[in-house]
């Protein structure tokens, strides 16, 4: 009984992703069941549609910028919190996880009105700022765990041996945290690359990320081209998830 529930739930969770992949190989212009022939025709179509290609590069650039900046800022902040345990550190931690409590819709409304007010509407920088805020809670959590696992004694040793703080950070702490930093970076990249709700609220027609472009395309019509693009998105995401899993990053989501 418990096994049946589990199998059913797995099917329901995986079904929408599997069906998109499957349907993207249809040779016909509509989805006809059952699918027996396979063709890459719609992948060619999707890759020659400039709307999707441009949106992919925008999403890519945005996710890289957001992930690099978030990991840098969060690493510094996590270092300050973990090593110095300053008074008020608990409140700061709560502050950095607060974006999780504000829904993406509300944050999208706030960002729309804010970027218009300060003149960043339709600018990449506005999107980068929003995506940083959205992924900070995840980066902070992951990097705090990473830093706590690096023995402080190693840093002391480096400083006793004559390194100054900067040298110690760069030559001892950073290399020891490499795996955690890569994990946090991939995780931030993935979340930013998939983000749709806040981005839809913030952007006009001039600056559409790939998820937003797919969304707008789908509101208009559903054809195998959009299935092919979506299948490519799934492939990119799953590849990153696989790397994350190898690095042990998904486990960090579940450690308390």
């Amino acid at each position, binding site marked *: 009984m418990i096994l049946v*529930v589990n199998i059913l739930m797995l099917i329901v969770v995986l079904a*929408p992703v599997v*069906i*998109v992949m499957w349907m993207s190989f249809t040779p016909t212009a509509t989805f006809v069941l059952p699918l027996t022939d396979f063709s890459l025709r719609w992948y060619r179509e999707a890759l020659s549609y400039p709307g999707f290609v441009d949106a992919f590069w925008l999403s890519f650039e945005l996710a890289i910028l957001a992930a690099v900046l978030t990991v840098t800022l969060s690493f510094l*902040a996590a270092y300050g919190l973990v090593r110095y345990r*300053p008074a008020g550190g608990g409140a700061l931690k709560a502050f950095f996880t607060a974006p999780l409590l504000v829904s993406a819709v509300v944050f999208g409304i706030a960002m729309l009105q804010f970027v218009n007010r300060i003149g960043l509407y339709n600018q990449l920088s506005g999107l980068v700022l929003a995506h940083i805020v959205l992924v900070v809670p995840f980066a902070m959590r992951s990097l705090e765990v990473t830093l706590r696992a690096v023995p402080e004694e190693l840093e002391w040793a480096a400083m006793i041996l004559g390194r100054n703080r900067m040298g110690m950070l760069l030559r001892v702490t950073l290399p020891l945290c490499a795996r955690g930093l890569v994990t946090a970076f991939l995780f931030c990249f993935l979340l930013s690359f998939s983000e749709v709700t806040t981005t839809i609220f913030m952007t006009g027609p001039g600056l559409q990320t790939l*998820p937003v472009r797919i*969304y707008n395309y789908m509101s208009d019509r559903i054809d195998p081209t959009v299935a092919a693009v979506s299948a490519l998105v799934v492939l990119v995401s799953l590849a990153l998830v696989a790397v994350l899993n190898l690095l042990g990053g998904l486990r960090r989501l579940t450690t308390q």
Partner: protein
Amino acid sequence: MLDRRAGVPWLFVAPLVLVMVVGFVWPLLQVLVNSLHPNTPQGIDAAHWTLGNYARLADPFYGEVLVRTLRISVIVTAITGVLAYPVALFVSRLPPRAQSLFLLAYISPWLINTVVKALGWTLLLRTNGVVNTLLRGLDVIASPLKLLISETGVIIALVPGHFMFVLLPLWVALSGLDPALSWAAGTLGARPSAVFWRVLLPMTLPPFVAGLVINFIMNMTAFAIPMLLGGARNMVASMLAYQVNLVSLDWPLGGALAVALVAFTLTVVWAGQRGAVLLVSGRGARA
């Protein structure tokens, strides 16, 4: 060894705090301020202050949208709660390697963007989609079910979409329990159902409720799935927010809506935590 002068830790923390203040606190305050100004055809009238935007939210049309959003969210959270418990129990009793595999299968769809999943559900639930074709092929139904552009479709797609948020905390709690507990209760004569109601559930209640609260919030503010699977006829709060802010461009009203959503969310979080504490302490007092 560390330089513990008061200012030093702040050098590390300050850049992120600055970004969060500019990118998070300021926009939210901006929305709050905008919601307190009247809207005019020329834009926001910053010279005057009003609570009128909040009064406009009392309109019966908005009430209907809110009730529909609540109905969908409660149903999805209830289904999730009932399904997540057996799944978490099953996974937590597997060998470690199998546990990671199952969790990966449940987590990875969450990391794929919602729009792609909405496309998948559209292909599955359409009149001539996979589900209807399958059911008709098996002679379960005579004519196709209308699953798309309906609340049913939205519910079907939201349950797996936010399933992970209940499953993960529950799995963590269950795998932290000593297996000897269930065994001990069994040797003392408790039937499996009694072990569940009297031992497992009370001990895992706080993380279970915490997961359900997050799940509920995510359902209340889901955007792409209700928009693409429910359609404008089944409008929910997030679609209304989109329409007010980006179609009618009435930002003071849109701001009031955002503030109301935050207030509602925080009330649910507070009530959920409070409820869990009361339930646990109530049981403790009786035991």
